C-alpha cells in the first residue's frame, strides 16, 4: 500500500490576481485574501455588533464587548498602569491572530499564521515598537533592563550577556511559537487525512483521530492568540516599568 502524502501542499501560496510593480511581485495571493477576510470579519463584528449600543446587549454585541473587555483586562493586569495608550495595538494584534487562526481551521481554507514571514512581521513590529517605547520613556536608563539589581559585579559579567541574548531572541521565539504551532497542527491533520484516504473502510480510525486533533487545534488557535497578546503585554511592561 503506497502512501501518497503531501501534507505541506495546503501551505502553498498561489497568486489569485497577478500583479507586478517594477521588479516586485505584489500579486494578490490566497494569503492576502484570507488576511483581508480576517480584517473584514473583525471590522464587521465590532462595527455592526456595537452599532445599536443597547443597554442589554444582544448576541453580537456581547461577543464584541466580551472580546474588548477580555483584552482590556489583560493589558491592565499584565502591562501595569500607563499602558492604556497601547491597548488598541494589543487588541488589534489579538483579534487578527485569533481570526487568522480560526479561519485556517475551516477545511480547504488557508492559514495565514502558518507562514513564518507573517508571524515574524508581527513579532518584529512588537519588538521594535516596545524597544522604541522603552528608549523614548527612559532614555539611557532603558539599559538598566539588562542589569539585574543587587548582583555582585563578577556575576554581572555573566548575567548581562544572558539578559541581552534573552532580549534579542524575543521576536524570534514569539514568531516561531505561533508559526510552529499552526504548521505542526495543520500538517498533523493532513497526514491523518492522508491515512484515511488510503486504508479503505478502516478510515474511521484516522478520521476519529482527526476529529480529536481538530478539537485540540481549536484550543490551540485561541490559546496561541492569547499567548501572543499576553507576551506583548509582558514585553510592554518591561519597557514601561523596567522590571
Amino acid at each position, binding site marked *: 500500500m503506497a502512501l501518497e*502524502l*503531501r*501534507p*505541506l501542499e495546503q501551505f502553498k501560496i498561489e497568486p489569485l490576481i497577478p500583479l507586478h510593480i517594477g521588479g516586485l511581485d505584489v500579486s494578490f495571493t490566497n494569503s492576502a485574501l484570507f488576511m483581508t477576510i480576517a480584517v473584514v470579519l473583525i471590522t464587521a463584528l465590532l462595527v455592526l455588533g456595537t452599532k445599536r449600543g443597547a443597554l442589554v446587549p444582544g448576541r453580537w454585541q456581547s461577543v464584541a464587548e466580551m472580546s474588548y473587555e477580555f483584552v482590556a483586562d489583560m493589558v491592565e493586569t499584565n502591562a501595569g498602569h500607563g499602558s492604556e495608550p497601547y491597548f488598541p495595538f494589543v487588541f488589534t494584534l489579538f483579534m487578527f491572530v485569533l481570526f487568522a487562526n480560526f479561519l485556517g481551521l475551516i477545511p480547504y481554507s488557508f492559514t495565514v499564521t502558518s507562514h513564518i514571514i507573517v508571524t515574524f512581521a508581527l513579532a518584529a513590529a512588537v519588538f521594535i515598537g516596545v524597544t522604541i517605547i522603552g528608549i523614548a520613556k527612559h532614555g539611557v536608563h532603558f539599559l538598566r533592563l539588562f542589569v539585574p539589581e543587587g548582583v555582585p559585579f563578577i556575576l554581572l559579567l555573566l548575567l548581562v550577556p544572558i539578559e541581552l541574548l534573552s532580549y534579542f531572541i524575543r521576536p524570534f521565539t514569539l514568531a*516561531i*511559537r505561533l508559526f*510552529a*504551532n499552526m*504548521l*505542526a*497542527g495543520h*500538517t*498533523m491533520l493532513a497526514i491523518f487525512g492522508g491515512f484515511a484516504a488510503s486504508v479503505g473502510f478502516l478510515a474511521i480510525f484516522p478520521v476519529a483521530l482527526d476529529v480529536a486533533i481538530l478539537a485540540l487545534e481549536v484550543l*490551540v488557535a485561541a*490559546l*496561541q492568540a*492569547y*499567548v501572543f497578546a*499576553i507576551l506583548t503585554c509582558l514585553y510592554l511592561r518591561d519597557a514601561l516599568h523596567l522590571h
Partner: protein
Amino acid sequence: MDLASAKMIGAGLACIALVGAGVGIGNVFSSLISAVARNPAAQPQVQPFAFLGFALAEATGLFGLAIAFLILFVF
C-alpha cells in the same frame, strides 16, 4: 546508509523533543490541580497562568515536531 532511511531516523529522533513537552504539560496541570485542591478560591487567579504555561510548554515540543515534518516532507 542511504538518504531515505537517514531521513526516517532523523525524523524519529526529532520527535524525541515531544517527551519534554509531555513532561512539561503534565507538570503544569498537576501543579494546577494540587493548587486548586488546596485553595479552590484561587482558581480564577491561577488558571490563566496554567494555560499560559501549557501553551509555552507545548510550543517547545512542537518545534521538534515541525523539524520532523520538514525533514520528512520538504527535504
